[in-house]
């Protein structure tokens, strides 16, 4: 398979030596701009490289996310790492393998066809030649551009791709080796720092309210305030004392009303709309159905608080971060702190699970600001649990109103999706904005990114997955992106796809019920996409059917193709509902195209289902007294072990297709399948997330009256 367009990584980083090196005997260095977030990407990239190079996976030494070594690959986001970085590494490895075998043939005076490779050793007619990669590599010109024209291995010759290679990063985490996480770094002379955050955007610190602390040094730059000490507990205690005494005024306190499901609809917005297809002539207005669905602001809520280290020494700034984008972070640190880009090195070190634009970049800027005030000292910033839940960007609240004009048989002929939400794509550097909290606290803060919509051709953002999976004659998508929105929102797993798929797949279920058609059959009647049909049929085949339905139980179905261009997923969910929703079983079929690591895909999909279930049933950021009110696990609960259902997953076998991203494929369909199951159990529909006990009691009471 030769792709006629190069993967994005290779377009941006065309030289072979940006991706591969033969520095150490017996090892091949592979460099990637993508980083491990707990999703297993490094293991998948090792598999891709090992297969194309005919090497044992242990020989691949991966370098990931270093601005001073390796390709510049933007952010690790959008379920694109296997496609962009994996696709690049695959082509580079195939090309370098071809160069090595050609060099061997020249050295041996034979034809390339006589040679094979076994774990880096050159074999001729089944016998060792004494030559290997590491003898031949110094003679190669790896500074030239990759052609991307060397064929990669066909499916039947792959040995490592498609196998369950164990994750390369898990042993360090299971056996407790030091250095598994950024939190473990303790360089000599380290100082611990805690930041006292502005309580709301633009808040001004009262000069007389900064408490004296005995055991820590206070770093203050305008409205940026931190406590620094050599003993961690002293920094924590000092920061707590300073926070308790500090007084803030001015700025823009958050509005309590932003907790309300439809507050977002009233906010000023940038509006756009587009239509596709041909509008059919329909005269009967009785055949028009309109419903509105909502989801609240939600938090990344990582288990490990954001952490960063920085050291400013001899006019050079070094930063260690769990950011998803070391190069964009470096650029924005340079802008925010007025330092030359070339004077900054950013190193990725793993953090706790990351599901989008969380506090990692902000923490890196915190550490950098403090390091600039204390030259020569390594500074370690760790966020508190409260800041992790309240100060990182949120996934925006959204409202999705859907309207369908139906055929006499009850199928949509004309469909309108109207979306309201805050911006999603607001990472540091997006749309020319900096977006780092510490920079916002300095004098003359740089502009925040302006709200933008990612183009549909790149998957969209607020309108991600708004285009229907189904064949409807005419569709209109109206998109309202709130401007100047407070609270701060940015990318979270799936972006707008979570709310849009939740809404669309709920609405389709409502339409199917109105038409008196089985929900899966209704969907199958609306699509000829063979891969969509195949995952739906697989989900049906794997789900046991029992005609007798116990009281208070319900079953729900949903299907989607992530971004209308990545992986497909169809899912059934069984629930039991009394006053609370309890998930019982989940059956899920996934088409990820070529699967590099089947267990890795299962792990991602299982995790996506559980996380989306947590968002759907429990999660909502609340605001009170101008601040974020949900600051602890007690008032921002997430799904617990006792609430997790048994999950069965089937991966479709598609070894000859291109790999399709799956990191975010489960989010939307899971929400819709749960909502559909709850509607099935209750006989009434709740259209606002989360589906909490209070919402269920209120809905049942309203229905009864």
């Amino acid at each position, binding site marked *: 398979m030769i792709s006629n367009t190069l993967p994005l990584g290779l377009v941006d980083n065309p030289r072979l030596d940006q991706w591969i090196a033969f520095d150490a005997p017996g090892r091949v260095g592979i460099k990637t701009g993508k980083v491990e977030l707990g999703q297993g990407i490094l293991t998948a990239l090792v598999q891709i490289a090992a297969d194309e190079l005919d090497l044992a996976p242990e020989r691949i030494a991966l370098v990931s996310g270093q601005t001073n070594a390796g390709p510049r690959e933007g952010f690790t986001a959008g379920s694109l790492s296997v496609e962009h970085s994996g696709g690049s590494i695959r082509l580079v490895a195939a090309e370098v393998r071809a160069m090595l075998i050609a060099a061997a043939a020249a050295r041996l005076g034979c034809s390339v066809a006589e040679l094979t490779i076994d774990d880096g050793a050159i074999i001729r007619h089944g016998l060792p030649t004494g030559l290997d990669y590491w003898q031949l590599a110094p003679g190669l010109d790896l500074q030239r551009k990759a052609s991307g024209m060397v064929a990669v291995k066909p499916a039947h010759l792959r040995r490592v791709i498609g196998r369950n290679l164990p994750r390369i990063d*898990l042993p360090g985490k*299971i056996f407790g080796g030091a250095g*598994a996480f950024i939190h*473990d770094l303790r360089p000599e002379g380290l100082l611990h720092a805690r930041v006292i955050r502005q309580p709301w955007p633009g808040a001004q610190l009262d000069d007389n309210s900064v408490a004296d602390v005995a055991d820590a040094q206070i770093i203050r730059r305008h409205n940026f305030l931190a406590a620094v000490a050599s003993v961690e507990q002293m920094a924590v205690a000092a920061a707590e004392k300073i926070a308790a005494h500090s007084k803030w005024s001015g700025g823009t306190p958050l509005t309590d009303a932003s907790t309300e499901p439809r507050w977002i609809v009233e906010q000023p917005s940038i509006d756009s709309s587009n239509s596709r297809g041909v509008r059919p002539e329909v005269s009967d207005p009785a055949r028009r159905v309109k419903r509105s669905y909502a989801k609240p602001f939600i938090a990344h809520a990582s288990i*490990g608080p954001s952490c960063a280290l920085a050291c400013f020494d001899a006019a050079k700034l070094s930063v260690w971060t769990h950011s998803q984008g070391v190069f964009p972070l470096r650029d924005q640190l340079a802008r925010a702190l007025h330092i030359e880009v070339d004077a900054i090195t950013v190193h990725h070190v793993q953090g706790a699970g*990351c599901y989008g634009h969380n506090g990692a970049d902000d923490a890196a800027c915190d550490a950098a600001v403090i390091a600039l005030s204390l030259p020569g000292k390594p500074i370690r910033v760790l966020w*508190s649990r409260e800041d992790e839940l309240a100060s990182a960007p949120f996934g925006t609240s959204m409202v999705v109103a859907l309207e369908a004009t139906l055929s006499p048989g009850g199928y949509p002929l004309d469909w309108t999706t109207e979306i309201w939400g805050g911006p999603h794509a607001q990472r540091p550097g997006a749309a020319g904005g900096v977006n780092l909290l510490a920079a916002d606290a300095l004098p003359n803060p740089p502009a925040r990114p302006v709200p933008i919509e990612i183009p549909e051709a790149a998957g969209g953002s607020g309108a991600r997955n708004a285009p229907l999976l189904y064949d409807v004659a005419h569709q209109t998508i109206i998109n309202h992106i709130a401007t100047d929105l407070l609270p701060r929102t940015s990318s979270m797993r799936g972006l707008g796809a979570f709310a849009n798929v939740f809404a669309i797949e709920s609405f389709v279920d409502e339409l199917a019920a109105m038409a008196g058609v089985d929900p899966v059959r209704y969907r199958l009647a609306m699509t000829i996409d063979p891969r969509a049909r195949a995952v739906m049929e697989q989900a049906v085949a794997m789900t046991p059917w029992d005609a007798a339905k116990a009281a208070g139980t319900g079953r729900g179905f949903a299907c989607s193709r992530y971004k209308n261009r990545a992986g497909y997923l169809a899912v059934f969910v069984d629930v039991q509902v009394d006053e609370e929703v309890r998930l019982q079983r989940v059956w899920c079929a996934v088409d990820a195209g070529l699967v590099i690591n089947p267990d890795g895909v299962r792990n991602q999909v299982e995790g996506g289902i559980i*996380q989306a279930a947590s968002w759907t049933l429990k999660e909502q950021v609340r605001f009170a007294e101008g601040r974020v009110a949900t600051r602890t*696990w007690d008032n921002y609960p997430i799904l617990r072990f*006792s609430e997790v259902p048994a999950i069965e997953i089937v991966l479709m076998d598609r070894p000859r297709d291109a790999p399709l991203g799956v990191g975010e494929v489960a989010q939307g369909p899971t929400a819709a399948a749960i909502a559909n199951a709850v509607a099935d159990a209750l006989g009434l529909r709740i259209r606002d997330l989360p589906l909490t006990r209070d919402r269920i009691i209120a809905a049942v009471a309203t229905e009864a009256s």
Partner: protein
Amino acid sequence: MPEQIELVVNGQARTTASAPGTPLLDVVRGEWRLMASRFGCGSESCGACMVLADGKPIYACTTPIDALAGKAITTLEGLGDEAHPHPVQQAFIELQAGQCGYCLSGIMISAKALLDVTPKPTRAEIAAALDGHLCRCGAHARILRAVARAGELMAERGVDV
């Protein structure tokens, strides 16, 4: 000179001069450089810091060091290593039970405490034992399977674990 507090940590006698009131987690990570136990919340809400004190799970993030004088503390490092894994560690590797892995250390500690008293737990018993632990990546389903598998491995290995 502050008074030295003596404990047994992963089978070895240790002392600390940390001030009374210092959380055990700060001593474990900051002083002894045992980095497997993790800070998550500081308020006994997530379980990332869980260690054993005389075989019982405790929250290291809130337990003051002076309350533990003379106790035997077990952290994840004390369970086993790659060459000699504890059955819980072996099962977590076998089932690839984890995503980011930040929550795993505390969870494996609680799993060991459970299996020491309940060698063949049901799924519900495992879930109940782990309910004080939060995992954000959604690795729960395979973690539940891994703990059950660890029970099987302990039975296969017999008493010498």
